[in-house]
């Protein structure tokens, strides 16, 4: 069943993190639609299913993506994401959100052209205010 495009997607196998993100986003932005996925493959399917009418959509969805996940890691998700058309890709702003404090992860994140920035967990209200842009999506 087709859903409306959410302004926020959180992808992390850690269900607790997804909950923290959702609450923090709500705390920062008020009521907001947040789709959470514990499996990146499912998230990809969601995008494929809901974002194909991209040509006349200038709205933006913000993705908070974990790196270390079983089944499909954040990096693998980014590889698959890159295969989408530019019309689809332009509808997303992807942030990596990881518990890792490893500099190598941060470096690698900056080199990926589909990643805007690397965020260190936990997501806070201040961070949300920095990354939030008028998204033109139904909140």
């Amino acid at each position, binding site marked *: 069943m087709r859903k409306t495009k959410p302004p926020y997607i959180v992808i992390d196998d*850690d269900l*607790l993190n997804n909950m*923290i993100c959702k609450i923090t986003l709500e705390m920062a932005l008020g009521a907001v639609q947040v789709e959470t996925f514990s499996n990146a493959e499912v998230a990809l399917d969601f995008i494929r299913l809901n974002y194909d009418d991209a040509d006349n959509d200038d709205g933006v969805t913000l993705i908070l993506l974990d790196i270390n996940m079983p089944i499909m890691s954040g990096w693998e998700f980014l590889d698959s994401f890159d295969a989408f058309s530019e019309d689809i890709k332009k509808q997303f702003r992807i942030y990596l959100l990881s518990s890792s404090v*490893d500099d190598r992860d941060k470096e690698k994140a900056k080199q990926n052209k589909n990643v805007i920035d690397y965020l260190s967990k936990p997501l806070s209200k201040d961070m949300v205010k920095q990354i939030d842009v008028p998204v033109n999506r139904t909140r």
Partner: protein
Amino acid sequence: MENGSIKLKILHLEDLATDAELVSRILLKSDIKFELKWVSNKTDYIEALNTYEANILLSDHSLPTLDSFEALQLARAHGVNVPFILITSTVSEEYAVEIMKEGAYDYVLKDRLQRLPRAITNAFEKWKIEEEKKEYYELIRVSEERYRQIVETAQEGIWMIDDNNKTVFVNKRMCEMLEYSSDEMMGKPNYYFMEGKINQVSDPNSGQDALDIKLLTKSQEVVWVSLSNSPVLDNDGNYIGALAMVTDITNKRLYEESLRNSEANIRTILENTTTGYVLLDMYFTIISFNHIAEVSYERELGRPLRVGENLLEYFYGERKRALQETYIEVLNGRKSDYETYFVNPDGSKVWYYVQFSQVLDVNKKLLGIVIAANDITERKEMDLQREKITEDLIQRNKDLEQFAYIVSHNLRAPVANILGISNILSAGNVNPEVLKGLSNSVQKLDEVILDLNDILQIRRELSERKEKVVFSKLVDDIKTSMASQLSKGNVEINVNFDQVDELLTVKSYIHSIFSNLISNSIKYSQPNVSARIEIESVKKKNNIELHFKDNGMGIDLKRRGDQVFGLYKRFHTETTEGKGIGLFMVKTQVEALGGKIAIASEVNKGTEFSITL
């Protein structure tokens, strides 16, 4: 008379015809066969000396042109050496003696001419004997000369001693050899010329003898000679001395001696080296070996090396086969070396570095093979120790990397969550879900700390004592401790330890390996399919294999194969409670025991782990 058959040719020098007539008449009356030529002056005399070939010369004492003395001298001067008889009327006693001294055979007085035939016959007889004697002496002289030439030009020295060992003869070569003159050597005993001045010559009575001895030259240089000795005996067989043929063999002996010295040098080197050398011919027959080889081969092979035996016979089984292969390689011109070890009765190892090389002659023709074996146990132990230290260091480093990874990911994750939750709580947003999340996070943090402890512990327990573990009993114990899980999941465990049921190992590790794999199979069993686990042990040549097979969910190895044994790697999220440490622990422990683990899996069919220990 003996000479009756011979017709004498007589030349008569007489100025008076009457006297000549008289002589002729008397001779005719005798029984001497002769022809007579009468000359009356010097000129005719000389002419006759040259042409007549007289056997007898008769001469008057004084002629107008010459006297008898001159006549005799003329005859001798013309090479006519036949008997000269003086016929004279008177002659002084002194003159007679004088001319006899000069070579006249006889003198006859004219008034006693009847004595002439007898004088002629006697003189001719005497002359004949003298001539024969002369011929004989000449023969002896020639033969002696020839003999002397042989002796003096001989390449061998010739040395004669008497029965007191005193030198009685040496030839030129002998003198040259010893740098003495013949005179200097004469009368000196043979041992005077020998090194140490000791009579080295064996009993001269023992007959023909050849031996090598050292002689000293005048300048005290050593000359090696070969003596061929024969005794000299008199007619009664008594020893009267010895004759030696002497050959200078100094160069040969020096060469031999230097060869012997160099051989001795090589021997010395070989006997003082720490390398064991065995020399073989091209059929692997033992030709020679040094002491080190003798000792070490006997120690390792239980059998002393013997010249003439085939070295292959000293080896058995795999070692023999390897040796044969190496042998063929070396024969084909490849230098071959390897390291090998023998196990002492106490279980310690003796390591050898073995090198095979061809032995070639100057024409590069294969003569045989040299095997050099070095005891490298000490070096090897150091190497192994170093390898182990390096390995340990690498492992430590990996541990540290893992630790860093754990810190940055697994330790950080619950902390990050706790931070996130505290942000939410401090904003006054208190709800039961958030509080539950807080407690979960703290619990997770504690688990990670415990895992860290477990992981780091494995290294520490490496030296743990090995003990006998019975697999069937081990599985029973695990079943008991996991009873609730087993009954809940309706799990069936089938074991087959017929081939091997016992192993000398670290019990805590093997327990952890078994329980982790069993619990893994239960955790990842397929929903709605009752779990079945099969455990089997297989005996292999040098080790054993353990197989754990289940009918669970399986893992997509194509995608994640390289991460199966990684720390905190999980493949099933929603369905199970796995936290990604079990297989990591199993692998670490298997490797700590010196084994290997492999996985085969198919999604929704099952997984099989194979462990080689």
